[in-house]
C-alpha cells in the first residue's frame, strides 16, 4: 500500500542527526524554522514522488498530533 518506507534507510543515523543539529547551532527559532522549511523543499525534490510526499506530510501531521496530546496531558 504505502509508497512511504518506515524501515530504517539512513546509512548513518547518528551522523545525519549530528549534521542536522549542527546546522541549527546558534540559530534563532525563526532562522531554524526557515532552515527546516528549506530542508523540506530540498528533500521533497530529491524524492519527487507525489504519493510518497503526501503520505509523509500525513504521517508527520498525525505524529505531531500525538506529541502535542502527550505534552498537554
Amino acid at each position, binding site marked *: 500500500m504505502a509508497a512511504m518506507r518506515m524501515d530504517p534507510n539512513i546509512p548513518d543515523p547518528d551522523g545525519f542527526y549530528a549534521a542536522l543539529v549542527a546546522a541549527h547551532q546558534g540559530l534563532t527559532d525563526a532562522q531554524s524554522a*526557515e532552515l527546516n522549511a*528549506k530542508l523540506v*523543499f530540498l528533500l521533497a525534490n530529491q524524492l519527487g514522488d507525489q504519493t510518497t510526499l503526501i503520505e509523509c506530510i500525513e504521517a508527520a501531521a498525525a505524529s505531531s498530533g500525538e506529541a502535542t496530546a502527550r505534552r498537554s496531558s
Partner: protein
Amino acid sequence: MTQSSRPGGSAGYELPVYPFVPPPELARGERAHHPIVIVGGGLSGLTLACDLAHRGIDSVVLDEDDTIGVRGASSRGICYAQKTLEIFARLGIYDRMREKGVTWSVGKTLSGRDVVYGFNLQVASASAQPPFINLQQFYVEWFLVDRIRELGRCDLRWKNKVVSVTQTDGEVTATVETPAGTYSLIADWLIDASGVNSRIRSGFGLDPHTSRIADRWCITDVRFKERFPIERWTWVEAPFNENRAVWQHPMADDVWRLDYQMPSDCDPDYVSRRDVAEDRLRAHLGDIGFELVWVGPYEYRDHLLDEFRHGRVFFIGDAAHVVSPFGARGGNSGIQDADNLGWKLALVLRNRAPVRLLETYDAERRAAAKENLEVASRTARFLAPQSEAERTLRRAAIDLARDHPFARVLVNTGRMSVANPYPGSPAVAGGGWSLPNVPLTLPDGSPSDLVTLARSVGTMFVGILYAPAPERDVSAMARLEAEGLPLRLFVSGPGGIADRSGRLAELLGATAGSFALIRPDLYLAALVANADAAQVQRVLHKALCLDTARVAA
C-alpha cells in the same frame, strides 16, 4: 521629486451611453414569447448574445445600466487568454482587440530586483492567437456590443432591470423594471449572466457557498510613457510596497494596471485616496511622470453554485462562479461558459439535438469552475499566508528559488487561464479538450485555420477524416449531413484540406483512416481510428446526446 500627475484630475474615459427604448411589451402591449432571454450585459452575457446571433438565433439581452463597464472606467478584467481570443476570432472582434490591446506571453515573478520565476507561454503555443492580450474590460464589452448591433439578431435592452424570475415546466417569466414602467416577458430559456450578486440566483434560494477572503488590494490604472517590458510582472514581497505583493500589467492607451496588496486590516478609503496612491506609485515607478486614471480598493470572494442549471434557467459567468483573480480565470471562464452553451442552445432550438444536450453544460462548465477555484485558491493562499509558519514556508521557497530551478515552480503568483479539459461523459468519451487554432490550407490552396473552418460551417460539428480512406466510407460519412445530422465532413489529404504543418494530426494523434469529431466550440468530442460511417454516426449521436438505443438499432 517631480511628477506630472494631476491630483484629483481625471484621465478617465468617456464610455458610450446607449439609449433606453421602450420595449414592445410596454410600447404596444405585446406579450411576446422569446426563445432566449439573457440577463446582464457583461462579458459572459454579451459573448453569448454575440455567439447566438452568429448562429442565427434571436435573443433579448436585459441590462440594468445604459453603458458598458462598472464603477466608471475601471479596467477590471484585463487579461484575455488564448481560448477566449479564439472565440473572439470566431465572433469577429479579435482583430479589434489585437489592434487596441497589448499582446504578451512572458511572465516574471520578482523578489526585489531578482527574477525568481518566469514563463513564456508562446513556446508551447500552436494557435494563430497569442497566449494573451491585455485590454481594459470596457473595451471588450464595447467591441461586443458593436458586433452584436452589426449582426442585428439581438434585442439589446438597456435600463431594463430584472426584479424577479419565475418558471413553470414550459417557460420562464421575468418581471422587468424600466424608466417607462414595469413589464413581464416570457422565454423558453433564461440565462442569468447578471454577475456576482445575482438576484435571480437568490430569488430561487440557491446558495452559491460564498467564502470571503481577508485579502485587500488597491487597484491603480495609471498612464505613463516610460518603456517597461511588455510582460506580466509580479512581486510576492515588493520592497516598495512594505514587502507585500504587487502586480504590473500593460494595457491599452499607455495605461498600466498596478495592483498593490494592502494589509488585511487597512482602511479601504485611505489606501485609495489619490495622494496616498500617488505616493505608492512614486515608490514603485521612481521619478517619472504619470497620470492617475482610476484608483479603488478591491477585495474578493469565492463562490460556486451547486448546479449551473435550474430548470429553464442557466447560470453563466460570475452568477455561477467566482474565483480569486490570480491567473485570469474569472472573465475568461465566463466567456468560455457562453462558448460552451451557445451552440447547444442553437441545436436544441432547431430540434437538431435533444434538450438532454443542455445538461452537458453543467457537467462541463461546473467541472471547469471547480478546477479554476482550486487552482486560484492555491495562489491566493500563497499570496496571503495565514500564519507565521506559512510565511516561513513561503520565504524559504522564494529564497531557494533565487538559486535553484526546482524551487521556482513553487512560487505561485497565478497559474494562467487555460481552456479547461472536461471530464469524460457520453458526450466526450475519455474527456474533452480544446483544440488550438492551428493553421490549415483549404482545397483551393488558400491559408486558413481551424477557427475559420468552424466558423464557415455554422453550428455544425467539423469532422476531419485523415486520408487515405476507402471511398465508400467517405461518401457514406458525407451522406450523414444530408440525413439531417449537424456534421460537415472534411478530408485531410490530397484534394481536401491540408494539415501541412502536421500540427493538428500530431495534437490529435491521428493517422491514415482516423476520424476526428470536433464540436462547434472546438473541443474534441471523439477520435476514431480506422473509422467507418457507422462509427462516425455513433460518436456523433453520443456527442449530441441523441438516444443511443435508437442509434444501435
